[in-house]
């Protein structure tokens, strides 16, 4: 019996929740699986593009080599047909690179949007789990409070029954009524303050969760921004880029 008492007296450890972030969610199984699938998809498209690049290089090279064979550096510089061919090749190449980039950006955009759905669901699940944890802690606290109050009621009855100064049954009944009245007030106050404290804890967790959802959207937007900026910048880069 003493062991049970000890257990009851032991204070519950404070409940500390790990922050839920885009990076913590990315470690979760539900995400890792998708990320792996997406990486495979990306690798496949890059491999396909790389093959196409190599093939085009080969044909471009062959036709250039045919034209410049036996010519000196200066002759090459001033040869109109060579310059025309190089310009055509540059245009052809840049057209292909642009198509490849667009393909990749489209895929990355789709992937971020798929990730968004998964990350949101994972976050909601993680937050629901935290809230449940908090609620069950609250249930335990209320149960403990009830037990404690029931014990006090029993003790009060015993105390009055054993009080030698109370001579008659009438006196004892009156004292018991008084004490019970006092207990009821105290118990109600205790319950009320516990409920208020728990309400505050829940509210605080809810605010934390709302903030987490907000920063998840913010972090995802950042990923989308990078793609947008790259697309915009490529419009300029394209004009000054060539491959050799």
């Amino acid at each position: 019996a003493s062991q049970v008492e000890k257990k009851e007296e032991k204070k519950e450890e404070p409940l500390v929740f790990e922050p839920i972030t885009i990076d913590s969610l990315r470690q979760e199984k539900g995400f890792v699986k998708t990320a792996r699938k997406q990486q495979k998809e990306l690798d496949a498209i890059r491999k396909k593009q790389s093959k196409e690049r190599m093939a085009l290089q080969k044909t471009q090279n062959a036709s250039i080599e045919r034209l410049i064979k036996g010519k000196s550096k200066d002759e090459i510089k001033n040869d109109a047909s060579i310059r025309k061919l190089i310009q055509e090749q540059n245009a052809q190449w840049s057209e292909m690179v642009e198509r490849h980039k667009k393909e990749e950006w489209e895929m990355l955009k789709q992937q971020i949007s798929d990730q968004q759905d998964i990350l949101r669901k994972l976050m909601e699940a993680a937050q629901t789990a935290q809230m449940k944890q908090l609620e069950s802690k609250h249930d335990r606290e209320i149960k403990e409070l009830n037990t404690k109050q029931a014990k006090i009621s029993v003790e009060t009855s015993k105390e009055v029954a054993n009080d030698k100064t109370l001579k008659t049954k009438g006196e004892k009944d009156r004292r018991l009524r008084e004490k019970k009245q006092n207990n009821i007030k105290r118990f109600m106050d205790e319950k009320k303050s516990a409920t208020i404290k728990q309400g505050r804890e829940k509210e605080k967790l809810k605010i934390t969760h709302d903030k987490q959802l907000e920063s998840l959207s913010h972090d995802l937007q950042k990923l989308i921004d990078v793609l947008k900026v790259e697309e915009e910048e490529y419009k300029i880069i394209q004009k000054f880029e060539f491959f050799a």
Partner: protein
Amino acid sequence: RPLTPKPQPSPAKEAASDPTTCEIANNHNTVIEIKLENNPIGIQVAGGCDTLVNTGAVIVNILPGSIAEKDKRLQVFDQILEINSTKITQELTCELIQRAVKQVQSKVKMTIYRADPPEVESMEIELTKKPGKNLGIGFFTSNPRGMLVTDIVTGGIADLDGRIQKSDIVTHVNSEKVSNMSVEECSTLLKAIQGKVTFKILRAKPKKRSS
């Protein structure tokens, strides 16, 4: 009795320089701010713990016609110490640095360190162009320092050799200076070369610094 003269308010040591207009000082941290109005800033940045430039983030290209070019203050090889309250630490990966640089927003605030002379590593790399094979390098040509390597094509000569890297700046091709050459000139020069090609390159090598 003469009144003791009230101490004059000490004149501001130096008017805090306005980040929207102040010039970037050599060998000092300078905070600058540029209005973007949701347009890309137009700088390309090398760096990240998973790249060869692993001691800091450095501007390697300023796109012609971009906001950064019109602002005129940033230069190639300027080091970025902080951007929009993201401190560029040694632990940041290339991806995280790019994420910090490429943000859509109304303005950007950066802490810049311009080393004078620029902190770069220079080297010569010789590659051999075999018939039917390409170097497999993408170059950006409108860079005042030279041609910026924008891409290394998988399976190409440069890729297999491994020494030339993305974000390197080629200043000379077979001793010929290539800065300020047009796309046409550069591509004719490189496509016409058979056999040995010597590239003189600059690679950003910033000292470790913090804002």
